[in-house]
């Protein structure tokens, strides 16, 4: 997979990415931690991202992957970030954590408790991360070191931030943490290696590490995407526990609009590297104001409805981030597009209390009250192939393409193109590949 969330650039170096405020040795509320930075206003946002931009130099030119992201995260809240593959969700979070590769050009501002994080040296950055921002990736092995026992990895995380912690206390705490995240026989399982766990169990261990030092912010990038749905339900419960135990605020990145509906307080919708709509979870799902949000909701089949209402696809594909044309980036796919949309990229406009949308025709969108079929055509198809021009991310071997094609009489036992079985190890749950829209190559 080519998502940054799974490759975790730079994050694996430290073994575990959770680096938090000093441990109190218990998991109950760390009531006094808001005083860790002198003079900080407790009502101010914990995390404030403004005008964040990320460019990646590539052979074809600079990819402008994140194009002016603004958000604030307040104490105790869950901010969901949704958007199509390649919209910049992972890059945004890695930029906040200071985990992008050195070649990336990052501008703007990321303030944690008022303190600027961008431009800090690696060392001071890891100290700042140590004040309580931790990260959970889609692939647990990004955060786990295969050669160490899981208990040891948790103890290390604890000791990095509390040198005075005795090894006995660290061990006890590791068991306690594993119990909290629902690992049976935690007292024995601390001695297991990551490969002895299933995918769901590993993600529990990662959550244990992420919450070990009572972080104030947990950034979770597709934490359940690789898991089966029954295991996802378990992990979402564990995440809920982690939030209750630590009192942390969370940025939850996912492409699953169901997960966000149940988990988030506020939602930020990304498109082509920018937020295009921000609002409370109810605003976004019931009264969206940006055509893209409306289109996303309309394209979802519903588990809880037997009326076979036709889905409303969004035609076309997101723009290449190499050379963005002027105007609204959603314009080529937007059914409400008018000439004025091409003049300038609409900024986020206030459309209600705490609700903003980057569109000049929000009044029209409002009339749909979340009913996408009022705005989007239900009969459209991608009849026009122009405007694609994307570089593919071709990850498979030549042979698999050849023999995998339907209609080709296949060799007796082989049929690699169907995927699904290669690389599966034991009971580890393997993710469905979610290729991106191609312009990341």
């Amino acid at each position: 997979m080519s998502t940054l969330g799974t490759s975790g650039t730079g994050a694996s170096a430290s073994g575990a990415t959770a680096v938090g405020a000093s441990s109190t040795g218990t998991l109950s509320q760390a009531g006094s931690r808001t005083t860790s930075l002198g003079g900080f206003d407790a009502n101010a946002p914990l995390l404030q991202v403004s005008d964040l931009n990320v460019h990646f130099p590539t052979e074809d030119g600079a990819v402008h992957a994140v194009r002016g992201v603004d958000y604030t995260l307040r104490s105790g809240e869950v901010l969901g970030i949704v958007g199509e593959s390649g919209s910049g969700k992972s890059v945004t979070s890695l930029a906040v954590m200071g985990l992008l590769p050195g070649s990336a050009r990052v501008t703007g501002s990321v303030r944690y408790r008022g303190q600027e994080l961008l431009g800090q040296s690696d060392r001071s950055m890891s100290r700042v991360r140590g004040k309580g921002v931790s990260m959970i990736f889609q692939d647990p092995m990004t955060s786990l070191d295969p050669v160490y026992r899981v208990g040891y990895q948790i103890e290390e995380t604890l000791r990095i931030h509390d040198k005075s912690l005795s090894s006995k206390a660290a061990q006890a705490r590791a068991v306690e943490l594993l119990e909290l995240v629902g690992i049976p026989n935690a007292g024995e399982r601390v001695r297991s290696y990551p490969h002895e766990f299933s995918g769901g169990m590993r993600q529990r261990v990662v959550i244990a590490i992420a919450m070990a030092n009572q972080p104030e912010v947990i950034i979770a990038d597709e934490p359940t995407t690789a898991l089966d749905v029954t295991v996802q339900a378990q992990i979402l419960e564990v995440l809920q526990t982690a939030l209750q135990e630590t009192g942390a605020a969370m940025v939850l990145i996912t492409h699953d609009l169901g997960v966000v509906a149940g988990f988030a307080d506020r939602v930020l919708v990304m498109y082509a590297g920018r937020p295009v709509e921000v609002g409370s979870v109810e605003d976004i799902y019931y009264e969206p104001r940006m055509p893209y949000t409306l289109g996303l909701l309309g394209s979802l089949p519903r588990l809880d409805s037997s009326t076979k209402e036709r889905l409303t696809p969004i035609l076309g594909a997101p723009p290449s981030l190499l050379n963005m044309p002027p105007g609204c980036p959603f314009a080529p796919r937007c059914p409400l597009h008018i000439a004025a949309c091409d003049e300038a990229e609409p900024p986020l406009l206030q459309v209600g209390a705490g609700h903003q949308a980057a569109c000049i025709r929000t009044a029209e969108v409002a009339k749909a009250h979340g009913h996408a079929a009022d705005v989007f055509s239900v009969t459209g198809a991608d009849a026009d192939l122009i405007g694609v021009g994307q570089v593919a991310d071709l990850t498979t071997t030549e042979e698999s393409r050849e023999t995998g094609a339907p209609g080709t009489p296949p060799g007796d036992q082989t049929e690699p193109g169907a995927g699904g079985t290669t690389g599966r190890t034991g009971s580890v749950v393997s993710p469905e590949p979610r290729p991106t829209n191609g312009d990341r190559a």
Partner: protein
Amino acid sequence: MTAPTTDRTADGADRRGEPILSVRGLEKHFPIKGGGLIKRTVGAVRAVDGVDLDLYPGEVLGLVGESGCGKSTTGRAILNLQPATAGSVVFQGREIVGLGRKEMRPLRRDIQLVFQDPYASLNPRLPVFDIVAEPLIIHGLTKDEKELRSRVRELVETVGLNPEHTNRYPAEFSGGQRQRIGIARALALQPKVLVLDEPVSALDVSIQAGVINLLEDLKDQLGLSYLFIAHDLSVVRHISDRVAVMYLGRIIEIAEQEELFTRPAHPYTQALLSAIPLPDPRRERARQRIIISGDVPSPANPPSGCRFRTRCQKFANVLSDGERELCMTVDPKLETRGTGHLNACHYAEATSVL
């Protein structure tokens, strides 16, 4: 009814007449080789372990289940791409288990497979025209170049692509467009049945919706039947007439779509439906969730009795010791048990969970 092992009238399928595809007792086991110099077979992954299915003309049968439960293996064994270990697959009245490649060739025209990964299943070195034309050429279905061109043009238009662009290569298309190319190719031979293995799982939802709509239209226009394999139950509910749920190599419940989603009777189906988050904040937050414990056991070593018992919420929390005995010792067959549709649970009880 003539179905040998199960009561087919039970799931309301009788009105469709004879099935076009009928699967009985299908097994596909993969040998596990031991270490050492001489690789002895030390066991078997029972990937598909006794599957019964019927697909009726013009219907969409959804096949769902979690990763590794055997959906793709079932699809491949049905198409005889991987020979079955045991069982029977009757397609249009003809047994295909045991047929060789040559004997399969005429049948392949009528039953085609569409793959999950639009990136992997198309030859990157061929332009779209050649990709779509290839099966027509292999099977000698067009008499001259002119007919070939017009047939390819027609196929490409059918799947909603611009025929002007067939000289381009797969890399120049987006994921959704590539999946359309794969579908055009599968349709080239005018099949009657498509086995679709996760055809939209790799696509973003906004793109996925267009491909789902296309598949629905094609089915109606061309009178196709689909075996639609997916792990996304929302997609499956949307497109399917009937749905079969798999667990550890077996079908554990099968019913009409509406029936399965509103009155699931097997504890696994109930847990699965309950686990899926709804993209509707108020409804999602008002739900009671059944959370089952643990992970799927290894298909090399399924539990005795009922295969779901190690994770079954009913087994763990509801049944008495006496009742549990049955779950541990007797493998439940697919029967109706008064629920109105086929299920494989001794204590099946239709319950709404959505």
